[in-house]
Every structure is written in C-alpha cells, then in structure tokens.
C-alpha cells in the first residue's frame, strides 16, 4: 500500500512540477468546446442530449491526451526499467497509474465542465451532485481502460498515435451511456429514470479495473 502511494505521489509530483499534461488537456478540451460549436446553427440552442454529447466528446478527447502522457513519461528516460526492477507488483503499478490518470482527468474536468456551462448555457446546470457522480463513474471507466492501453501502446512503434484507435472502440459503449445519462440530467429528469444505467457505468469501471489488474503483468513483462 505504501508503494502504491509512493508511485501515485511520484506521478502527481512530476505533473505538478511541470504540468504539461493537465495544461494541454484543459486547453484541448476548451478548444473542442469551441470547435464543436461550429455544428450549431447560429443563435440556436442545443438539445440536452446533444449538449451532453459535446461535453463528453471534449472530455474524452482531452482524457486521451493525458492518458498517453503518464506512460510515455516512464519510457522517455527508460524509467520503466527502473520501475520493473523495483519490488513493485504489476497490480500495484496498474492501480497507481490508474489513480494518477484518474486524478489528471478529474483535474482537467474541473476546468472543462464549468467552461461548458459558460459556453453552452447554465440552464443545463441541474442536480450537481448527481452530475458529479456520473462524471466520477465515467472518469473511472475511461482511466481504467486508458491505463491498460497506454501501457500497451507505449510498447509499440507508433506509441501514442495508436492510443485513441484502441481506446475509443472499447469505451464507446461507456461514452454512449454517459452521454444519455448526462442528457437526462440536463433535462432535469428524476434520478429513478436512469439510476440503473449508473450501475452499468459502475460495473464497466469495475470490470475494466479488474481486467487491467490481471492483464498488466503480461503487458509489462514484454
């Protein structure tokens, strides 16, 4: 457990010293929020579900940007060899990377989500506690999938360019559910309407955390 916090601490401190990941994530997310606006006819207001789609496209694109960073940073100075030599199990390493990635994505969301409400209208701002829960669940799922795949793509010749190609097909169902649920929140529907989908989102995060724990060892051994 101590090793786990040590690793998380290391990753987050590296990020704090030189916040290259979070800054580019927030910048890219903001850029996407503006860019996606071109799909809107002038003066029109988005339907709740479309607005939710805009928000999650921005967040997930920003997330991919950050997910590649935590692993490629290990590769740069061959730090990964040091990590593998240290008495850290693959499971601990996966859990630590997952936590660091979760923190990075969450940090970028802290800016992207408020910017979204500013740009697309605060009439969508309803039930903040439920929205926060949905964001946490979706971020957990994305971080779990992305952590495993970033370990994988770090070992390929094409590196980070490959990550979105592997990442999106797998998280597509999670994103679809998230967008639907977020749209319902924006519309002000009661929690009972979509609470069962929150379980599916939680299940996704748990399944992929479990799968990542199991599959990290063979991936790292290569």
């Amino acid at each position, binding site marked *: 457990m101590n090793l786990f916090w040590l690793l998380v601490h290391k990753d987050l401190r590296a990020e704090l010293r030189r916040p290259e990941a979070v800054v580019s994530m927030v910048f890219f997310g903001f850029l996407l929020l503006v860019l996606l606006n071109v799909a809107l006819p002038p003066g029109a207001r988005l339907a709740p579900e479309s607005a939710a789609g805009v928000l999650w496209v921005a967040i997930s694109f920003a997330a991919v940007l950050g997910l590649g960073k935590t692993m490629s940073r290990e590769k740069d100075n061959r730090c990964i060899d040091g990590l593998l030599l240290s008495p850290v199990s693959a499971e601990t390493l996966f859990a630590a990377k997952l936590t660091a990635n979760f923190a990075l994505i969450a940090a970028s969301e802290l800016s992207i989500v408020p910017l979204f409400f500013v740009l697309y209208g605060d009439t969508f701002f309803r039930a903040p506690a439920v929205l926060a829960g949905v964001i946490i669940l979706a971020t957990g799922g994305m971080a779990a999938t992305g952590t495993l795949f970033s370990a994988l793509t770090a070992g390929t010749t094409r590196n980070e360019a490959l990550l979105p190609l592997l990442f999106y097909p797998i998280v597509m*169902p999670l994103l679809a559910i998230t967008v639907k649920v977020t749209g319902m929140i924006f519309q002000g529907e009661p929690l009972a309407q979509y609470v069962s989908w929150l379980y599916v989102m939680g299940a996704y995060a748990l399944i992929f955390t479990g799968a990542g724990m199991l599959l990290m060892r063979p991936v790292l051994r290569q």
Partner: protein
Amino acid sequence: MPERIRDNLAIATAWGLFALAISLVFFYAPTEKVMGVIQKIFYVHLGSALAAALSFSTAFIAGIAYLTKRQRRWDRLGAASIEVGMVFTTLVLITGSLWGRPVWNTWWTWDPRLTTSLILWFIYGAYLILRAAVPQPDKRATYCAVMAIIGFIDVPVVFLSARLWRTIHPVVIRAGSIDMAPAMIVALVASLAAFSLLWLILLRQRIKALELDERLFSLEQRLDGDMP
C-alpha cells in the same frame, strides 16, 4: 490422410455445401410474402454473423490460452480468427445494409444489433492495427491476446449500451421476429453449415499462412546473423 488431400477435400465439401444451400435457398425455400426475394439475403447474413461470432469467441479463448501457455500457435489461431472474423463482420454489415434499404427504407439505423456489430468491427479493426504496429513476435502476441480479451469482455456492455444509443427506428423489425416456414429453416440450416465450413477452411488457411510468415521471419533473422 496427408494434409493437402484433407484440405482439398474440405474445400470440395464446402463447394458442395454452398451449391446445396444456394439451390435450397432459391428453389426449395418459399419466397417471403411481404419482402419478396430480398429476404433471401438473410441466409447469407445469418451465416456470416455465425462465422463472425465463432471468430471472436475463438480469439478470446486463444488469447487466454496464449497468456497462460505462451505457445505461439495460440497467437496464430487468435490472429487468424480475427482476420477472418473481420471479413465476415464486414459481410454482415453490408448484407444487412442491402436488406435494410428496401425493407426498412434506410441503409442504416441505430438499432442495437446494427450498432453492436459496427462497434465490434471497430474493436477488431483496432486489433489488426495494433498487430501491424508491433514488429517483435512475442510482444505482438501478448499485446494482441490482451486486446482480444478486452474486446470480448466489452461485448456485453456494447450490447447493453446500444439499446439506448438512439431510440429505435419505428419501422425496425428485428430479424428474430420473422416467422419462418419449415422449408426456410431447412435452407437456413444448410447455409449455416456451409458458412461454418467456409469459416473453418479460411481459418486453417490463414493459420498456415501465418506459420509460413513466422518461418520466413526467423529465416531472415538467421541470414542477418541476429539469431544463432
């Protein structure tokens, strides 16, 4: 029985089965009352869907087997089945689209089954891209096994999520609710058998081709003096 004769026998049987299935489909099974002759595409559609499902389950099992046993033949089986599965998934999507245009009056609708097949196509397409991006054989085998396992785990979530992706098009009728005459079922069974055999043959040929690829690779390395 020597390998070549066995393979040729299988190929000849597949020709025969396809001839039988096609004649059953066109001359024995009745023409559907509402959809007419376009319904016949269903026999190809379901046959390809079966082959695709076989492929992805095989790749999942081969992926687990490779990670536990570390034998290269499991990697070849997994890679071959995903390659073949991609072909059949593409066929499923195309035949479904051709059928959907006259019957549903649209090439595409975000129906759960359609969406699921499309996402599967993307997942396994990503597998093939990943495969091409890793030159080292052992590493490639491990990564691909992981991808095949993850992709298969995702299937139930994909299907669940597809149910709410978009509201289902009102005129959509699921394939399962088509009532079938007994003669149609006979034709369907024949075409399913034909497609399963075709799947096996293609799988076997791809495995052999991958085997040759690997032998060529190691010969090249020996020529370069990389390996003793």
